[in-house]
Structure formats: C-alpha cells, structure tokens
C-alpha cells in the first residue's frame, strides 16, 4: 500500500497509531482491543453502506483472523491499522465478545466518529500537540485527546486525494507524482505559519469515505490506461517529459540533484475485457444503452448515412477537400513518425515503413489526378495551406532522394506562386531546412533543372521569377542554397566544366541571377536564412569586378539588415 504507507516522507503524518516512537499517544497504545471494538462499532454502522461494487483491495493487509492475532502486538504497523479499519468496512470482523470499555468516558457515537475520520488515513494533516504523550496510561480519560474526536477530523484536504492513491491504481507520470508531492508538502508546511486554523471541526468533512474516493479514482484511472500512452495521451506525456527535461537541465546547471528519476509504474489492473459496444437482448428490437466505466452514458449507435455532396466548382468545398486531404495525409505521417520512435527522421529501414512512406508520397503527389498538370496543381494547393507546408516539411526527411528531388523541383518551378500564396501564413520557412538537406545531395543536372524554373520567363509576364524570389526570405535562401551547391559541385568536379551545354547553362544562370541581384534595390532584397560562404567567390568567377563589388555591397548590406 504505497500511497498510505509513506509516513517517512510526510512530515505531518503523525497519526498516533502511525508513530512508533516514544511520543506515542493514547490511541495506539490502547490495547488493540480498542481498535477492534471501535471497528466493530463501525461495522455495525457501515454495514449498510454499499461496498458490493468494490473489490477487496488486493494489497490490503490480512483478513480478520490474522488481524485478531496481531492484537497482542504493542506496535501497530500501518497495515494492521489499515486492516482494522478496512476490515470493518467489509464487515469482516467477528469479535462479538469485546465490549467497548467504559473507561474512556466516551460515548460510542463519538468513538465511532473518531474512527470514521481515522478512515481517512493518508494525508493526515493535523498536528495534534500532545503535551504529555509520553505516558500513555495516564492519558486515558484525559480530556485532551480521545474525548475530543475533532482532533482527527477535518481532513478533507486530500481532495483530490494526492498522496493516498494506491500505487497499483495510478499511472501518473513520475514527474506528475513528484509535483503532487511537492504541492502537498508545501501545503502542509505553510498553513500553520500563515492561516489561523479554525477551532471548530468541520462536521461535513469525509462524507465520502476513503474507499469511495479510491473507487472513483480507480474508475477514472482505468480509463486512462492504455497500451500506447505516447499515442493516446500525447499531450500529458509530452508535457511532463518536457518538464522533466527542464528540471534535468536545471540540475545540470548547478541545482542539486534532488531525486532520481523513477520508472513509470506499469498498470497493475488489467483493463476490463472488451466491453460490448452494442448489447442486443434476445427478442428485443434495437439496441440497449449499456453503461460501463468507459461509457457511462453511451448513446445508441446511429447508423451513419454518408451523403456525398457534390458541389462542383464551389471554392469553399474545394478548399475543404484540400484540407480534408491534408488531414488524411497527416495521419499517415504521424503513423510513420510513430514508427520511427525516437531519433531524427531518416529514410526508413523497415519495409513496412517504406510502404507507408510510398503511400504517403503518392497521396501527396498524385492526389488521384490523372492529369500531370492537375497533380502538380494539387500539390501546390497543399502547399498553399500552412498545415500542408508543415506536412511536407515533416515528410521530406523520410523520402528517398529521388522523390524528395521531385518535390523540390516542383517547388522551385512554382516558387513565385508559392511565395504569393504564403503572404498571410509566412510559413514557407519551415520547408527550408529539409529542402536544404535535399539540395546538398542534388546532381548537377537536377540542380540546373531547379534553377531553370527560376530564370525562365513565364509566358505573359515581363518579370522573371527570380525577381519575386529575391524579395522573399524563403525564396532567396533557397536560391542561395542552390547556387552554393552548384558552386561546390563545380569546384569539386572539374569534369563538369567540360560538359559544355550544362556548364554554359550554369554560367548563364549565375550571371543572370547576379545581374538581378545587382538590379534589385537593397531594401527589397530579403534576408536569407543562411548565407553560404562560397557565393561571392562564385560570382567572382563569372562576372566582372564592378558587378561583383555591387553584389558584395548589396548582399552584405542586406544581410546585416
């Protein structure tokens, strides 16, 4: 019974029966007879309480017979006391011979009240100041303690019961548990200092017994148990992981290491066997609403009628379709990421994962369009939505290079359009990092294809795409990355210079871009996310000195801004 038996940790857990030292107070030493008798009283009172729905807690101490054997022990450990109390609730005691001693001068009802509140064993928060608790015998009948049942009451503050959660029932994240403990400690330490405690007992405290509370908590906790908490309870887990990490970082910085991290407690209770969602009673029509702990108010299943609403051409419906599509793909992506577990996303190793990725890519690229044009269009529509950008950004690391390249090329070919559509979201930046990685593996030919999309004049427009691109942060970063990679390829492989057509194209493009940059007013030049160091040398190779100087001025100035 981990929850209750933590007197060591809880400073205020000074229930007389729990203290083992010399400061033992009256009740505990009262020969165990007391306990038994009082419990018997309680048994009479509480027999009518409905305990039928509760399983006997498996980790509660012994059954009645054993309990009586322990009677003679002077030292009551927690389990014995617990069992005394709880056994009464089970109506398990059978000790009719013991009468309530009259010695105490207490009426049975007040004794009962005493025990009822003792029910509430865990966070016992009272601090009885027993001035002379040392000599037990004399305090019998001492008006200080026993006749004053109010001493033991007023314990509603374990609401929600923080410490007393039986360990086998709870599955709190260790960080969460630690927090709760801290809260409780601080609560217990501060009140005596600050708030004047009331003099009157709270007669309504503990209307719910310990067991009842535990039961409710158990019901709620069982619902939380899952095979896959990372998936089912994502936010809770992530929050406490983050908290833990932060604390670990703090500790690294100098704060003393307070606690070792605990292992997550695995659930003790087996989840109830699959409940039947639909209960059919023979001979009756329809379904019956069955109330279980998973669905206390279950509605009868209504058969869904899927109506396909065809609204051709409606802009809103098309947007809805795109959004819907993005959601479906996101689910696939989440599955893939989940399969990856911890660690950076890599192109997958397992076959199952490869299949998943393949499916996702196809979903993205083709979107059930036969026409290539429309397919590209679909892809662009996905990219026009913020969530779509996030989807692609997270998906890219999983894709094999050739597929990633095709996406990259689609993006560069339609970059001005994407930039225009990104005005509200300003979210293209999230694509930069994965694309940059892809770029670093491009072949020269692919690179040229990418750049060509940017330099060619679109039909019906006097402006080259580059102009628009240079004014956008994502665009310019992408452009610089491409140029930088090209320069790297050329400098590493001198044979490229020999393949004339490609190389000429390359130099032409570089010159063109350089010229465009020089033409652009510095204020319009966007600041790139990264500035590759080999760009200026690149331009030096291909353009005249004057232009280079202009470029230098512009690029560096723009960068500083």
């Amino acid at each position, binding site marked *: 019974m981990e929850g209750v038996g933590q007197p060591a940790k809880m400073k205020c857990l000074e229930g007389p029966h729990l203290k083992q030292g010399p400061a033992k107070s009256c009740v505990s030493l009262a020969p165990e007879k007391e306990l038994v008798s009082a419990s018997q009283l309680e048994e009479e009172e509480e027999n009518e309480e409905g305990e039928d729905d509760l399983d006997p807690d498996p980790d509660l101490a012994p059954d009645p017979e054993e309990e009586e054997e322990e009677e003679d022990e002077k030292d009551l450990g927690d389990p014995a006391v617990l069992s005394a109390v709880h056994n009464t609730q089970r109506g398990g005691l059978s000790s009719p011979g013991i009468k309530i001693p009259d010695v105490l001068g207490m009426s049975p009802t007040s004794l009962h009240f005493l025990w009822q509140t003792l029910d509430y064993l865990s966070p016992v928060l*009272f601090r*009885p100041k027993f001035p002379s608790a040392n000599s037990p015998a004399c305090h019998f009948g001492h008006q200080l303690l026993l006749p004053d049942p*109010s001493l033991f009451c*007023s314990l509603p*503050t374990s*609401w929600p019961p923080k410490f007393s959660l039986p360990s086998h029932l709870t599955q709190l994240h260790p960080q969460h548990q630690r927090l709760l403990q801290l809260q409780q400690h601080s609560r217990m330490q501060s009140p*005596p200092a600050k708030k004047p405690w009331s003099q009157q007992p*709270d007669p309504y405290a503990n209307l719910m017994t310990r067991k009842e509370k535990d039961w*409710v908590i158990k019901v709620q906790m069982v619902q939380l148990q899952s095979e896959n908490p990372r998936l089912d309870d994502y936010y809770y887990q992530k929050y406490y992981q983050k908290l833990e990490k932060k604390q670990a970082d703090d500790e690294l910085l100098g704060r003393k290491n307070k606690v070792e991290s605990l292992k997550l407690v695995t659930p003790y209770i087996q989840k109830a066997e699959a409940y039947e969602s639909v209960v059919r009673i023979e001979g009756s029509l329809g379904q019956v609403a069955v109330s279980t702990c998973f669905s206390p108010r279950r509605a009868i299943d209504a058969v869904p009628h899927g109506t396909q609403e065809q609204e051709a051409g409606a802009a809103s419906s098309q947007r809805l379709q795109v959004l819907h599509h993005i959601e479906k793909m996101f689910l696939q992506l989440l599955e893939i990421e989940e399969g990856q577990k911890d660690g950076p996303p890599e192109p997958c190793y397992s076959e199952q994962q490869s299949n998943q990725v393949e499916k996702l890519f196809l979903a993205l690229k083709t979107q059930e369009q036969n026409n290539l044009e429309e397919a590209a269009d679909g892809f662009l529509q996905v990219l026009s939505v913020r969530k779509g950008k996030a989807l692609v950004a997270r998906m890219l690391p999983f894709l094999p290079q050739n597929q990633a390249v095709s996406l990259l090329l689609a993006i560069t070919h339609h970059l001005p359009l994407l930039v225009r559509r990104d005005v509200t979201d300003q979210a293209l930046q999230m694509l930069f990092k994965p694309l940059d990685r892809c770029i670093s593996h491009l072949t020269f030919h692919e690179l040229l294809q990418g750049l060509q999309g940017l330099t060619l004049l679109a039909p019906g427009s006097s402006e080259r795409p580059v102009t628009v691109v240079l004014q956008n942060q994502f665009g310019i970063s992408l452009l610089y990355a491409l140029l930088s990679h090209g320069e790297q390829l050329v400098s590493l492989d001198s044979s490229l210079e020999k393949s004339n057509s490609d190389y000429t194209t390359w130099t032409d493009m570089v010159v063109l871009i350089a010229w465009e940059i020089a033409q652009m007013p510095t204020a319009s030049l966007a600041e790139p996310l990264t500035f590759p160091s080999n760009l200026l040398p690149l331009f030096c190779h291909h353009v005249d000195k004057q232009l280079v100087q202009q470029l230098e001025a512009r690029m560096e100035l723009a960068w500083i801004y």
Partner: protein
Amino acid sequence: RSFFLPPEKHLVLLRDGRTLIGFLRSIDQFANLVLHQTVERIHVGKKYGDIPRGIFVVRGENVVLLGEIDLEKESDTPLQQVSIEEILEEQRVEQQTRLEAEKLKVQALKDRGLSLPRADTLDEY
C-alpha cells in the same frame, strides 16, 4: 489546543457560464458534484457579487472545470465585491449591450445574405 485545517473551497465552472464556489463534499465517476454552502459568483468587469445558494447537486455533464481555491490567495484579489443588487444590475446592463451588438451584427449579416448558427446550438458541435 487543537487545530483543524479549514475545509477546501472549490470553484466550479458550469457549461451555462455560471461560477459556483463551495465546499466539495462528494463526487462520482461522472463528475456529478455535491457542493455545500455554495455561492454563485457573478463577475462583471472588475466587480463581483456572491449569491448564497446552499447545497448544489450538479450533474456531471454540465461541469466545465473544477479547481481548488487557495484560501490565502482568495482575499488577495484586485476585484471588488459589491452587493447582490448592484451586481445583478451590472449584469443586466452588460447583457443588454451585448444583445444590442448582437442584433446589429445579425442584421448586417442578414443584409448580406448570411446567417449565424444560433449560439445555443453551437455547443453541440
């Protein structure tokens, strides 16, 4: 001398927007609550007023959230407590201005051929 911890006060927010403050005496797995010595607190701007209500039994489905009130910090508030009559009057005034604004909005939308779903049915979505 003997000391007792004062019982904890809880604050419950209901789905209809009411705020109840009282001592939580009993719960069950549906979050049905029994509140003792409950007070309904109405907030308007920086003012608030408490209406004593006695014992409340709240059906779980109507509970939005429930929290514990730190008794020490309770008195530490920038809000000003006023009488019940005053707060009810303030509430009425606030409601009225809101309704009028709403009416204008609905009219403007109607002029453009649009309509808002009714607020009381929104809850189901």
